């Protein structure tokens, strides 16, 4: 079920009403409703893959219980390895089997040993990369004695499958989300209104910005050979807005929806395109994944401790694994490696924690230095996005080659849209960026907007956003991060 679909617009109010009116007196019943709703939400895509979530949840629930009753460290380790093996095993099989099989075959062929790759016709279950990481974090935290295991099976299963963030995150930590299932939730008017505002803004980002850019991006990347270098740059910039609007839009809808049910989910994007260096960008982009890798991979590897070689190795590992998490394609690995290369000089010069505050905090106009740094960071990010968007490494390199060889400026003529559409899209991006800039000190751009406006202006503002969502709802595209 897509967040930007009629089905979800019917599903959400029904669950909301049942949640607050029919089951609000009984916490267990309320959690059970959430569990049922979450499974229904997931089954809307493919009910067969529900079994994976149930299996993964069961394993981690049992591992958690066993971990609490076992003191033998070797047994505890085995239990953790079981959880890791099951979760990463599912992920590896469904997501990476064909990639490894084909890569091995290519490698053998390269060394003069022709080898036939066995390819399986596997469907990638939606959201598998997200919920496996979420449930895995529980087992690791229990193993490390950072949290006590739960005995409440309904709460645990609801935590793993919580529908707002089930298929595309944010990847929540058990320590933050699970305890919220133990406590009675009371309806909070301001929280619910805030949730609706965040949903509205998320839909705007997805439908108006991302989907609108997608039409142009898809055409430019598919037919790059007929376009000038300047049009290709425009395509890459539009993709930067597409992926941001798409993914952060999804996160906003997820967080907003969770708030409607009285839950607090972690912020996943903190205005990353206003970052002044790449280290800041990575503290602001897909925060739930970056911090997951930091806590469960980077730090166990030694983090920033040890020899310089070890530090560099750890940085490359975390960025490359992060890239590979996005998909079974060399393009994502290169994207990760490229970001590691961007990050490394800052890290080696000990400048990776220079920009911990918000750009131009408390001010509207940034300094020239900030503008330059933001522009430079955005530019290198856009360059890396080319690899992320390309179908293959060859596609990415020939896109870049064509861009460089045809670098002249012209008014872009896009096959699939007219000049007017292109112009309107540029204006929308400009308005969007301005709103994001003005609201960058909040959790989401319009959080503090309109709070002191009168009702007419406030509602007019919301209506304007809603109408633009309606107008652009034609170009409905699936959320990019569903494929991960």
């Amino acid at each position, binding site marked *: 079920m897509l967040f930007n679909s*009629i089905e979800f617009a019917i599903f959400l109010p029904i669950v909301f009403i049942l949640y*607050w009116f029919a089951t609000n007196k009984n916490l267990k019943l309320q959690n059970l409703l959430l569990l049922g709703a979450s499974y229904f939400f997931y089954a809307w895509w493919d009910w067969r893959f529900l079994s994976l979530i149930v299996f993964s949840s069961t394993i981690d629930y049992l591992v958690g219980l066993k971990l609490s009753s076992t003191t033998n460290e070797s047994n505890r380790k085995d239990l953790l390895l079981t959880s890791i093996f099951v979760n990463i095993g599912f992920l590896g099989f469904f997501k990476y089997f064909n990639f490894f099989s084909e890569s091995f075959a290519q490698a053998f062929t390269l060394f003069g040993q022709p080898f036939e790759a066995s390819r399986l016709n596997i469907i990638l279950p939606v959201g598998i990369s997200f919920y496996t990481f979420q449930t895995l974090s529980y087992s690791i935290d229990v193993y490390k004695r950072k949290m006590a295991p739960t005995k409440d099976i309904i709460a645990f299963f609801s935590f793993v499958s919580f529908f707002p963030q089930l298929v595309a995150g944010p990847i929540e930590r058990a320590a933050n989300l699970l305890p919220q299932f133990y406590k009675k939730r009371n*309806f909070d*008017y301001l929280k*619910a*209104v805030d949730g609706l505002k965040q949903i509205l803004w998320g839909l705007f980002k997805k439908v108006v910005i991302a989907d609108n850019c997608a039409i142009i991006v898809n055409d430019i990347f*598919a*037919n790059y*050979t*007929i376009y000038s270098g300047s049009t290709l740059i425009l395509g890459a910039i539009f993709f930067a807005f597409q992926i941001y609007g798409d993914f952060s839009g999804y996160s906003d809808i997820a967080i907003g929806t969770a708030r409607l049910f009285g839950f607090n989910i972690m912020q996943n994007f903190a205005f990353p395109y206003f970052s002044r260096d790449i280290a800041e960008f990575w503290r602001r982009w897909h925060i739930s994944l970056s911090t997951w890798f930091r806590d469960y991979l980077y730090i166990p590897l030694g983090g920033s401790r040890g020899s310089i070689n070890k530090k560099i190795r750890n940085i490359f590992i975390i960025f490359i694994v992060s890239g590979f998490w996005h998909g079974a394609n060399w393009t994502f690995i290169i994207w990760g490696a490229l970001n590691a290369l961007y990050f490394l000089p800052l890290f080696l010069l000990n400048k990776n924690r220079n920009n911990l505050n918000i750009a131009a905090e408390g001010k509207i106009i940034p300094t020239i230095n900030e503008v330059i740094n933001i522009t430079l960071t955005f530019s290198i990010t856009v360059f890396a996005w080319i690899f992320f968007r390309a179908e293959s490494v060859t596609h990415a390199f020939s896109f870049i080659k064509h861009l460089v060889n045809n670098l002249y400026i012209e008014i872009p*003529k896009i*096959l699939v849209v*007219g000049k007017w559409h292109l112009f309107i899209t540029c204006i929308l991006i400009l308005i969007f960026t301005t709103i994001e800039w003005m609201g960058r000190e909040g959790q989401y751009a319009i959080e503090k907007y309109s709070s002191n406006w009168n009702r007419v202006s406030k*509602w007019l503002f*919301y*209506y304007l956003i*809603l109408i633009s969502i*309606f*107008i*652009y*709802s*034609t*170009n409905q595209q699936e959320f990019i991060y569903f494929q991960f």
Partner: protein
Amino acid sequence: MKSFFKKILFFIFPLFVAAIMMDLYLVNMNSLYKEKASGLLDHANEIEILILGNSHATYGVDPSGFSTFAFNIANVGQSIYFDKELTLQNLNKLKKLKYVLISLDYHSLYFSRQRGERNIWSYYGNGIKYPTDNYKKADISPFLFGYDPKVSFSLVKKNILNKWEFRNEDYFIDYDVELGVSLTDTTMKGYISFSGTEEFVFNNEYYINRIKGFDNLINCSTEKELVLNELGQLISTLQSNGIKPIFFSTPTFKEYNTFLDSSIINDNLIDSKNLCKRYNIEFFDYSINHDFIKDEFFNPDHLNKKGAARFSKMLDSRLKLYNN
């Protein structure tokens, strides 16, 4: 909680009313499909030649180029099934109809209908449903599920602009509902045209990509038998009513033609030969005609107004041979 629900209802109510008003407006809205259908009925007693087909025929055959009354009922993405249904539902009213020109293109035999909104818009205009498709949502709300909001708003905008400029609404309808743009040209005997030439699409990369789209459709298609069956029904009914069906194909740009898949061309040739032999009909095949220059094309596979005028005269002169 009560206050929350009350405010939500207050907030939604105007949107709900607006959606209903939009639906009422759209139900009565004119469109190219309606315009062509009503034009056909208005001229039912005069029409001697009927032109069927998809966008190639829509933009490529100008009925004014014929010496007898012709009408173009082709439409973008219109498949043979819809050609057949449109013709048969009006056949008893077309008293003078002598010839039906059926467009047979590179991909015509490989798609039963174009999936997507165009079929729904065609349904609003012509009332024809594809038997296995679901039109329930489109019936509930043209605003949300049929024309969908973007196109709906565009239609309203164009309508207001037309009124603002004191134009006669009868002559300025919204033709291209797909992009929500109205062409400034008026519909004449069902014909609308492309003006000028999109120079930047005349290159090898574009030809390859354009043809790749057709080839994918053709290679993945399992509908050929179904389409041939529909075509057979159309031809048989026409012939039993004393009307002469004729196949035709519009010219495509010569350089573009070099990228077409020769095996598909051969298959098409065999199919068309078999059809012509089986039903004893002629095929005015101009797909490999190299007379047409870039100036007469809008893009490599669509003629513009200038090209359509010349092509229509060519078709007319061939039809005259029958009359003589």
